[in-house]
Structures are given as C-alpha cells and as structure tokens.
C-alpha cells in the first residue's frame, strides 16, 4: 500500500472513531464537539478572515525569529565546534540553557522589551537557537579526520579548509539542527502567543478558551499541527533527501 493511502486511511479511521465517541454521548458537546462542528468552526474561521490573519501573523513572527536563530546559531556552532576552550565554557552554558523551556524567558523578555514583538521574538530565538548551535557544533566536531588530512595534503588551509571541507561535512548535522530548531521555534511561538501577545494563532486559541468555544480550540490546534507538518514535508524532507542522495545514504531510511 502506498504511504499516502495508508496515511489517508489512518486519519479517516481516526475521524470515524472520534464521531463514534461523540455519538455515544459520553461527554457534553461543549467539552467534546463532533468532527463536523470543528470543521464548521474551522471553515467559519477561515471565511471570516480570523484564522488566515492569525496564520499570517504567526508565520511572519516565526520566520523572522527563526532566520535570526539561524544567523546566530550556525556561526556560534561553527565556533564552538572548532575551539576546545569555547566548547568548555560557552558550550556548557548553551547545554545548560537547553534544559530551560523557552517560555521561561517570557517574564524576562517582557521586562526587557515590554509588551512588544521584540519580546516574543526573543522567546522564539531562545527556543530555537540552542539546538541549532549544538547540532552545528556536533557536526563540525565530527568532521572525519581523514577528510581534514586529505584536504591539508592538497594544500587547503584556513578559510578554504573551513568552507570547503568542515562546513559541507557538517551539513547533515546542521540540517537536522535546523529542523529541530524550527519545531522548537514554532512551539515557543505558540506558547508565547497563548500567554499574551495579540493576534497570532496562540491568541485565537486563548480566545476560544475564554469563549468556552471548544470547537474553535480544536480547529486552531488542527491548524497549528498542519502548519508544523507542512513545513516538515515542504522544506525539511526535500532538503534532507537531497543531502542523503548526495552522501549516498538514501537506501538507509
């Protein structure tokens, strides 16, 4: 069976199961709405422009903050991967900070930046940048010594060695860091929007709770999940496939 078909069947089954549970009337409709009610809420939300606006706002925020995370995280990782001293000092700090859920930065961000876009960008960057840095540093550190010796015997030095060998050899690791970073960025944004920021999907979600509109809550959650999945399929999978093909690894997964 093709993977698209099995996927479709799985989700159709899930919806049927959901409908059955609804019809058993185990819970009142405002706690557990039917798939149809959620679909209608989603449809209304899209038609009224509320959901498209929220999606656009959230996507703009996450894209900007994610771009910033890449600009900080990749160079930082390249440095950490090559310097023992930086690895021991800054590397330990980065590793420690990764234990901190990024939403814990929100109070600090609010005090620093006030109720602004900058505050939310800060939270998202703190969520994404660490995993990008760590993966990049790992990739650089794991450059096969043989590649380095081969490049050096051919006279490659300094920047040429870095851009021609270390960076491309770390590319698969950097890519998986970027993928991880993206999902952290998306989650951090949703958490931050839930807690305060106007507009955005998280805000619509909070609004749904305040209005006791369970169908809307579920509809927005569906949108959040879908966007996460779509980026994975549209951006990261093709990129990973290309790298795997190039590296001759495509048979493994």
């Amino acid at each position: 069976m093709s993977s698209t078909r099995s996927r479709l069947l799985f989700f159709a089954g899930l919806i049927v199961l959901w409908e059955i549970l609804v019809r058993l009337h185990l819970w009142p409709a405002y706690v557990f709405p039917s798939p149809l009610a959620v679909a209608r809420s989603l449809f209304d939300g899209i038609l009224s422009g509320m959901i498209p606006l929220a999606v656009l706002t959230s996507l703009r925020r996450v894209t900007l903050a994610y771009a910033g995370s890449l600009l900080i995280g990749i160079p930082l990782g390249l440095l950490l991967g090559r310097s023992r001293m930086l690895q021991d000092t800054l590397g330990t700090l980065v590793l420690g900070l990764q234990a901190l859920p990024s939403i814990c930065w929100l109070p600090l961000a609010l005090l620093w930046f006030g109720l602004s876009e900058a505050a939310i960008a800060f939270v998202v960057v703190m969520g994404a940048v660490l995993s990008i840095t760590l993966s990049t540093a790992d990739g650089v550190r794991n450059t096969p010594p043989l590649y380095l010796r081969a490049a050096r015997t051919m006279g490659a030095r300094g920047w040429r060695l870095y851009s021609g060998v270390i960076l491309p050899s770390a590319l698969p690791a950097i890519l998986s860091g970027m993928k991880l970073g993206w999902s952290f960025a998306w989650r951090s944004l949703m958490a931050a929007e839930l807690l305060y920021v106007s507009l955005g999907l998280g805000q619509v979600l909070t609004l749904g709770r305040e209005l006791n509109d369970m169908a809307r809550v579920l509809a927005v959650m569906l949108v959040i999940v879908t966007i996460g999945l779509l980026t994975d399929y549209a951006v990261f999978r093709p990129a990973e496939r290309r790298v795997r093909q190039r590296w001759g690894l495509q048979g493994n997964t």
Partner: protein
Amino acid sequence: MSKTFRSPHGDFPALRGLDVRAASGEFVCLLGPSGCGKTTTLNIIAGLEQADSGTVWMDGQPVGGPGPDRVLIFQEPALFPWLNVRDNVAFGLAAQGVPRRERQRAADVQLEMVHLQEFAAASVHQLSGGMKQRVALARALALNPQVLLMDEPFAALDAQTREALHLELQSLWSATGKTIVFVTHNVREALVLGDRVVLLSARPGHVKSEFRCDLPRPRPMESHTLVDMAQAILTDLRSEVQAAQEEARHEQHPL
C-alpha cells in the same frame, strides 16, 4: 628522522634514526611489519606531522608544512561525498586558487588518464572501491606534485582490482615521471611496483635493509624471479614481525 608519540601511558618511540632517500622519478616502496612507523614516515614527509628530530629534504630545501608538491594518498579514498567526481579531482586546484573553468578542464584531463572521464558528473557513492581509488589518484595528480606519497592505497581492494590498479599506477608513473614513495606490508606488491624496496625494522622504525628490483615491467605477480625475491625478503621481514610481537607482548605486561 626520529619521532616519539607521547601519551599519559608513556612514550612510544615510532621512528629512530630513519634515513630514506628517493631519487627524482624513482619508485620506492617502504615495507615493514604493521606498527613499524611506515605511515608516520609518510605523514612526516607530507608535512602532516612533525619529526622530533631530523629534517625532510627535497631538492636541497627543508620541507615545512603540507604542500601540493607532495600529495598523500590514503588507504581509504577519502573523497568528499558532497562533491561530484570532477569537483573532487579539482579540489586541490581550488585550494590553490585556480579559476573554476581552468581547474575543471584540468580535472577532466586527469580523469581521462585514469579512464573515468564518463563518471565526471557522478556522485562518489556510485563508484566501486577501485574506481574511488583511481579518482583519489587523479585528484592527487591534478596538483602535478613532484612526489606522490601512497599509504597502502590498495590494501582494502580485492585481488583483481588491486592487480589492475598496479598496472594502471605503473603506466601513470612511467607517463608522468613522478617520484613515488609507496608504503605497503605486502612483499609482492612492493616488488611488483618498486625500483627499490626499503625494509623497515620493527618499532622504533629504521631502515633494516634495501633491495633493488630491476625486473622488466610490467611484472606479473607470479613471475618466478619475483617470487624468489619475495621469499628472501619475507625471511628478513619475519624476524621483524616477531620482534614487533615481542614488543607488543612486552607492552601488555610491563615489568
């Protein structure tokens, strides 16, 4: 030359008073038991490692760090998977700052020399082990080095591929007139390829004996003269292998 590796567990003298010379255009094979410092010797000549004492001289000039006049070829092809075959061959020229068009043309010429021109745009992983090693050879030759340093380059290949590459290397050598220093632990391989076979002692490595090999080329592996010579060298080598094993035992049970 001498070289000692220092570690917290003690010092390991790898080379002691090693002295090897190669005439320009000569094919020299370094032969010795494993762990005798053959690879270290090549690394030092290539400039990837420093000798503790002694100097590598080339045309009367002391050799500093790595340089494209002495290119090292490894047991593994060490090709870069993110580059296609042509760009792999052109890598060294890129490192020298040769413009793109020019270095690609040079790479194509080298690929033709190793009969892989139709694989120029292929990915590295599409090649067989022997083809990869030929690309590695082309990549080294693209730099037009004076000396080719080869560290057991065919050890990981099957017997047939190895023999084909022996022939190919010999014809490349006579076509280009490069000086080749070839490290191997295979006596017959050394005799098939080398003008001169230098037998190294067990660790710490120094030159134990030398054999000239003036048989006409190409030399079949089964030629009687070659087998007889190999026998003589093997007897010599065996005592060194034993010495190396003694040493290893000694290290396992230090007194």
